């Protein structure tokens, strides 16, 4: 996908259906990653039932949505996981799903390998157990590696290794590349946003300006590394990175959460960006009629970025990153490559930052001692 300016204008006005639809199947998760974008942990009792989920897949197929990105929580925890993905691919709706890998044993790997139109992304947060487990919990790295071994042994083909760029993982770019090539896998790097539990760790874990500059160079030299278009704020540094280079929220991107709520993007699970619920009038209705989406499809104003010569490349960056750091949407991205975001953050220090609305993190149980 090259950055074609006329096409980008079209996309800013929205499409008949999203290109990048993420559907989080469950809030349940057996891990508790510190940066979880959906604050997952506990299943929500109101999650879509199997028949509701299948009806949603039918609607997605009717809208000719080419593929869905399935996430969670840990999607494989749902007992109807295979039933649902098979229901989708049987109707030619491709499935890409993100998993922590803990449920991919030899048998699951063989079953996955037998399904067409299926992509798997296994998440790690470091190229070694120590770095990765610091974020994802003890033992999680080894489990993810075992899942990769099983997929390889089952001849799954090219799966993806997905890494969120933190201050630590960004120092291991070459190691991730080597790991991917060891498995014949594709490497996918995405941006750390201050969403979900990420709100609490973003400040200490987001890359420094110098690290971002190195990442930009590294990515420019490696167009084969996937990024889900997440680093377009770095395009302000020079040549644009591969991708659409725009905030796709409500235009080409959206999220359906486990209870059917539709949000503008997976990184803005907050009432302000809630467009409706698929249980009310269906997903197509929300996508085409929601007043929130209509307003997101109007041309944005450059706001505080108006005088920046790089606005055309970076478009002021990521809406979610601004929102959850307490910035106005007209402010520069908190990680603006020229440091304007840091200045804006400084100026807004006193404002209360919004907290993500639903929180499904596991409750911490306090053990009271008898004595």
């Amino acid at each position, binding site marked *: *996908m*090259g950055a*074609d300016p*006329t*096409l980008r204008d*079209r996309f800013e*006005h929205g*499409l*008949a*259906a999203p*290109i990048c639809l993420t559907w989080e199947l469950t809030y349940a998760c057996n891990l508790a990653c510190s940066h979880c974008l959906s604050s997952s942990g506990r299943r929500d009792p109101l999650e879509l039932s199997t028949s509701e989920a299948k009806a949603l897949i039918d609607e997605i197929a009717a809208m*000719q949505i*080419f*593929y869905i990105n399935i996430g969670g929580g840990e999607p494989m925890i749902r007992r109807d996981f295979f039933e649902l993905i098979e229901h989708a691919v049987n109707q*030619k709706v*491709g499935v890409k799903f993100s998993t922590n890998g803990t449920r991919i044993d030899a048998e699951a790997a063989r079953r996955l390998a037998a399904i067409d*139109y299926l*992509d798997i992304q296994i998440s790690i947060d470091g190229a070694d157990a120590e770095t990765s487990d610091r974020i994802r919990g003890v033992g999680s790295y080894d489990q993810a590696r075992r899942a990769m071994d099983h997929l390889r042994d089952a001849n799954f083909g090219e799966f993806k290794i997905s890494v969120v760029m933190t201050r630590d993982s960004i120092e291991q770019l070459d190691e991730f590349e080597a790991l991917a090539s060891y498995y014949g896998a594709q490497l996918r790097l995405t941006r750390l946003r201050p969403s979900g539990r990420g709100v609490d760790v973003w400040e200490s874990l987001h890359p420094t300006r110098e690290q971002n500059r190195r990442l930009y160079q590294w990515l420019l030299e490696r167009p084969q590394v996937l990024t889900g278009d997440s680093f377009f704020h770095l395009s302000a540094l020079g040549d644009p990175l591969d991708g659409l280079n725009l905030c796709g929220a409500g235009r080409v991107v959206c999220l359906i959460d486990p209870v059917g709520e539709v949000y503008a993007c997976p990184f803005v699970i907050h009432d302000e960006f809630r467009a409706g619920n698929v249980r009310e009038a269906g997903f197509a209705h929300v996508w085409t009629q929601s007043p929130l989406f209509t307003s997101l499809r109007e041309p944005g104003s450059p706001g505080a970025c108006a005088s920046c010569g790089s606005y055309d490349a970076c478009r002021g960056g990521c809406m979610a990153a601004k929102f959850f750091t307490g910035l106005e949407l007209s402010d520069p991205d908190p990680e603006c490559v020229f440091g304007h975001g840091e200045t804006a953050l400084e100026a807004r220090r006193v404002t209360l930052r919004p907290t993500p609305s639903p929180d499904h993190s596991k409750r911490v149980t306090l053990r009271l001692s008898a004595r």
Partner: protein
Amino acid sequence: MSVSATSAFDASAPWQLSEQVSLRDEAFGALAYHHVNRRLVFLKSPELVAIVRGLSSFSSAHEAIDAHVDSSQHQRYVSALSSLFNSELLSGR
């Protein structure tokens, strides 16, 4: 569209939209998605979409083009189809 008319695309042969491809109408034309190579391709004119959808009912690409646009446009659409061919969107019949 960046058109590279270098390939073995033969406009006098019969073609069709590949079975691996889904096509979705959009205000600007259509989006095409190849389920196997996972490429997303933009068809940026309604005429091109009509030609592509009609390919299978003509005995050559030339005929399919002539049915939808006038002759001054013909060569442009041969190039456009050729570029879709290069993205593996078309298959022979």
